[in-house]
């Protein structure tokens, strides 16, 4: 029983990692209707910037804030310079561009910062009251940060005019322009915010998994799975999906098939759920009428 609880809690901790990157994916999807495969690499690179700042001597929170600014600016810059020219290109060409971006940023991380793993500090003290043998203080802290970001994203899209404008720009750019929404800037803003959320995800994840250029590789995959499972057009669904994937993986590995087929089984279960609910557990089902 204790082992079971441990697996579940450990799964929630890992799920928190997936959920945090899933949020960045949701942000970019809501803003642009594209899934950015380079999101993980952007997050990793931002985390490296933070690491370098801390290495030079900046205190943690200053480095954190500077990194957020950098990540936002980088996101906007990438959108305007690299992604914008492909606005009207076929979907798969855009995907190819994202893949290219992924490869470039990943290679740059490795070239600038080398491949040896680097420890990344956690802002949560190790002997905090909320630490336990099941979940370290950082893991608990990270879950709360993820939920806080989730609340912010949800509130942004639901309750602010800017969020509404962004969603409109993504769903119907033509009509949005007609009512005065600056579609181009909405896209750039979406990328900037996604970069920012990604940076937070990276800085929360690195203390647990250690920083190296391939840090976000597996995580992006499972974050993607989680986001789709919960419904990619839905911030809290994506987060829940991330947690579910984490727990599912752990339980599958511990009790179902052993660790050698853990990934396969987890993915099969996810696909199975999607087949039954094709828009994800909490996604909006689009019904087309003839």
């Amino acid at each position, binding site marked *: 029983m204790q082992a079971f609880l441990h697996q579940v809690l450990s799964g929630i901790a890992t799920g928190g*990692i997936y959920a945090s990157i899933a949020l960045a994916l949701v942000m970019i999807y809501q803003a642009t209707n594209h899934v950015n495969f380079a999101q993980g690499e952007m997050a990793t690179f931002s985390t490296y910037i933070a690491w370098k700042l801390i290495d030079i001597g900046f205190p943690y929170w200053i480095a954190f804030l500077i990194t957020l600014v950098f990540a936002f600016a980088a996101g906007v810059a990438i959108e305007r310079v690299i992604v914008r020219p492909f606005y009207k290109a076929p979907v798969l060409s855009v995907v190819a561009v994202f893949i290219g971006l992924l490869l470039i940023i990943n290679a740059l991380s490795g070239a600038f910062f080398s491949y040896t793993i680097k420890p990344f500090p956690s802002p949560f003290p190790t002997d905090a009251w909320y630490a336990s043998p099941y979940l*370290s203080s950082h893991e608990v802290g990270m879950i709360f940060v993820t939920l806080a970001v989730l609340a912010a994203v949800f509130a942004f899209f639901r309750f602010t005019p800017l969020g509404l404008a962004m969603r409109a720009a993504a769903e119907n750019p033509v009509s949005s322009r007609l009512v005065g929404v600056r579609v181009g800037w909405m896209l750039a803003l979406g990328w900037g915010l996604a970069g920012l959320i990604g940076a937070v995800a990276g800085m929360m994840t690195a203390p647990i*998994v250690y920083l*190296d250029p391939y840090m976000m590789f*597996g995580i992006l995959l*499972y974050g993607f799975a989680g986001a789709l499972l919960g419904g990619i057009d839905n911030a809290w669904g994506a987060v829940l999906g991330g947690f579910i994937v984490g727990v599912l993986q752990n339980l599958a*590995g511990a009790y179902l098939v052993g660790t050698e087929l853990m990934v396969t089984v987890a993915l099969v279960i996810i696909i199975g759920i999607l087949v039954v609910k094709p828009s994800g557990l909490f996604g909006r089902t689009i019904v087309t009428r003839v």
Partner: protein
Amino acid sequence: MRFATTMLAAASLLALVGPAFAADAPGVAATEIKIGNTMPYSGPASAYGVIGKGEAAFFKMVNDKGGVAGHKIDFISVDDGYNPAKTVEQVRKLVEQDNVAFLFNTLGTPTNSAIQKYLNVKKIPQLFVATGADKWGEYKQFRWTMGWQPSYRTEAEIYAHYILREKPNAKIAVLYQNDDFGKDYVAGLKDGLGNKYSKMVVKEASYEVTDPTIDSQVVSLQASGADTLVTAATPKFAAQTIRKVYDIGWKPLHFMTNVSISVGSVMVPAGMEKGVGIISATYGKDPTDPTWANDAGMNEWRAFMKKYIPDADLKDANYVYAYGVALTMLHVLEQCKGDFSRENVMKQAADIKNLDIPTLLPGIKVSTSPTNYHPIRQMQLEKWDGKTWVLFGKVMGNAGG
């Protein structure tokens, strides 16, 4: 095709105009010898690409000193992305297009498996392959293929014998990476424990390189009630394992693979106090271990790094590895005494007598013979005391063939 061919030929750094290659010594011209190599410079294994970088710098140093027997070394290293299909292509290019004399320190087990038959059929030396798999010592079937480092299997056997001796009633858990590296350890444990394996090993857990954490695996292993843990993980996961084991309050007798004992890359990130008591076996000196801070051999390495790769990360033990294996190669070339035909290179490689390499532990030597294709067979046990690795026991394994 023609374009690519021309470009590659033109790019060869020491391209001499129409070099005359002796018919019986391919890859060897009057003042040059070509050595081929494949490394993962791209893809998930690109962390190991620095080994190729280290070796290139080493051979540059040799050339700066005049080369070997009047021959400069043209070290041609190409990327295979750790993909065996790509390795086959690249090696064919090195052999048939670039006309290399032989292959040196090609990296990876599946990648080397893919080219082994081709090279042996063509009688091309496949020297000092960069993998710890045990199979590279089969001198009877594959006369032209030779390993270098002690195999993972040998290392796991050493742990198994230690357990049988010191803790014969141990309940063992194994955590391993789900690839040739990890699985070789499991095989080694099986060999070492013999028919006691099924009784003593109570749980095995594997992980994929793409898994973000191994927390779930460690929790499962603890739940099995084991009191001994053998971990065959690469640095990132090893650090996570050490930390998690400590955090959940589990105190097993913990063996860690030699691949992941670097002070700077593993013990520090994990938390130096969290790994106290971990046992490993090693054959080389750790560049971040304070024990070797003023060691003559390591200082020689540091001087080389400072001059030839000044921007390198000195915590990366891969550079130490590259130096050691390249030095072995140099020794073989010097032993050739100017005759760099493939037959002679292979003969000299199988005739290394007690070579002392400054980056190996004192007492560990490199030796080969026509019936011993495992150049390094010795290791020594060491224990982590919270600050450094403390060697204990004797150097184990026999040096001679």
